[in-house]
């Protein structure tokens, strides 16, 4: 995909973020549910949308800034670093969850341990699905 098109789609996503945020705030006050969580979440989404728009404007200042940003995003070393960081995060997170299951079981908190075990299981299932998909792709 052309990088300029990619940037344009990011701008569209930012606009969707802002629209969603406004809808959440308006919806939460209109239904008089006084749901603080939904309105604050909407507020955060609006800010995220504006940050994305600001980034878009900074990147698309001129052709040179677009080219520089494209290089940063497509740089193979950066991609390798990201991939390694994600892999390490997955391993550490799984290990932490497994430790939490053991600790919670020791303190007889079976219900919490059960749900965390399910989340570990889900992670492993997702890992294997991804593994099989990439095995076919590569």
């Amino acid at each position, binding site marked *: 995909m052309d990088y300029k098109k990619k940037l344009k789609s990011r701008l569209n996503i930012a606009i969707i973020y802002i629209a969603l945020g406004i809808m959440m705030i308006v919806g939460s006050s209109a239904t008089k549910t006084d749901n603080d969580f939904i309105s604050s979440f909407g507020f955060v989404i609006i800010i995220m949308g504006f940050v994305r728009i600001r980034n878009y404007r900074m990147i698309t200042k001129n052709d040179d800034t677009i080219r520089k940003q494209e*290089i*940063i995003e*497509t*740089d*193979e*070393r*950066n991609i*390798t670093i990201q991939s390694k960081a994600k892999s390490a995060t997955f391993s550490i997170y799984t290990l932490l969850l497994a430790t939490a299951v053991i600790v919670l079981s020791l303190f007889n908190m079976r219900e919490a341990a059960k749900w965390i075990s399910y989340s570990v299981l889900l992670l492993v299932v997702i890992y294997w699905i991804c593994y099989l998909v990439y095995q076919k792709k590569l």
Partner: protein
Amino acid sequence: MVNEYTVNVKLTLLSAEVIFLYNRIRALRKENKVTQDELAGAVGVTRQTIISLENGKYNASLQLAHKISKYFDMKIEDVFIFEED
């Protein structure tokens, strides 16, 4: 081929065979009076990637190796040298 500008990366394979990968990027850059920024821009990577390659911290992909060799108008095997132990 191998000089003071050459760095080597030790690659250990599963079979315990040890291979050294040398690259001559720094030497070629100096010979051709090219800055890291210029080379990075020409091959579409960041300057940090060129620094890592020159310091032997990172191994280039085949695509990048091809682009770098093409930039210096050389063969891949003349820029990236494999040596078995």
